[in-house]
């Protein structure tokens, strides 16, 4: 889905946990998440920590959309 959306020229960030899969399939902008059942907030941590983590990673993703890249890039979180 990411590839089809990018194919029409829309920049797209793939937020996912198993980054090698995303790379193999061919996403170009990748932001790692923390797990499969809860990509953006570990329920074992406090609500505040979950919010901080989610806010941070989503912000990285938004900013990645405006980042010029020359090759497949996994953004630092």
């Amino acid at each position, binding site marked *: 889905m990411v590839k*089809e959306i990018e194919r029409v020229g829309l920049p797209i960030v793939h937020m996912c946990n198993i980054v090698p899969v995303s790379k193999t399939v061919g996403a170009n902008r990748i932001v790692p998440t923390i797990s499969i059942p809860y990509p953006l907030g570990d329920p074992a941590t406090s609500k505040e920590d979950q919010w901080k983590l989610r806010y941070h990673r*989503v912000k990285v993703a938004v900013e990645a959309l405006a980042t010029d890249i020359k090759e497949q890039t996994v953004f630092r979180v």
Partner: protein
Amino acid sequence: MKKAIVYINQFFGQLGGEDTAGVGPSIHEGQIGPAMAYNQELHAEVTHTIICGDNYMGSNPEDAVKQILDMLEPLEFDVFVAGPAFNAGRYGVACGTICKAVKEKFGVPVITSMNEENPGVEMFRKDVIILKGGNIASKMRKDLPAVAKVANCFLDEVPVGPADEMGYFPTGHRHQVFIDEDATSRFMKMLHARIKGEPYVSELIVPKLDRVPIAAPLKDLKSARIALLNTGGIVPVDNPDRIQSASATRWGKYDISSMDRLEGGVFKTIHAGFDPAAANADPNVIMPIDAMKALLKEGVYGSLHPYFYTTVGTGTTEKEAARMAKEIIPLLQEDHVDACIMVST
């Protein structure tokens, strides 16, 4: 008698379903689940079965691999087999990850099986012999003996045949073989076949890689319109579009224009590929509407497309996923969306 060790996930290891996908690796003497069938098929005794939760391997691969290699260290074995993993993506990646690591550390032959749609195929087929398997677990009776057949070549110390003959994905290795017919005659035969429109097989097949050119970045984030999508199955609790929990062919779009976050009890996940507890309690952990709305208020980006889009990624074929994306794209374009964020589980 020679010895084999089998790797399987929590499901085939009879620990449970998604609720146990987070369990770390364990080793068991003897045979559990598919390891019993391997014990029948292999020209070796299956001395141990290793079981690891798919999520554990997916989220902590280095740690999981280290633990398993430590378990294997004191053992003697002649072959290591994993799966079959069918079209289970996390399981396939897990089988590939551990096979590659075992081969590198101990130098023993490693063999597994996956469906061609499994992402593990492209990731590991150059390092691991991966049999071309079925898409669902009911293909076990066919897939498992195919793995055993290749493993037996190693155990019996006879050469493993070429990929298309033995039914595994080409590993990219070339082996020297002697053919009586010289290259010129072979070439002329292929040329004739091509001219006559008859089938022929090239001796150097160029692989096709589907890569999409990198889209240009947004010029101005402050005025950009962004849309959110997810393959984590986040839907209103009554799942109005009846999106399937696995092997999805349907998708839905849900209005978020009047909410600041997704509430548990209003939205939930219908994804069958992981424990839904966390996402049901707080759907924002998969579809981060709360964070996107906060960033919008802060003026980090221009505007948010009023809908988010959902399907389920587990078992879904690339072909179906591409079709669903093509159905969604016009809706994004109509609303002048400039960029997208996709969250996958």
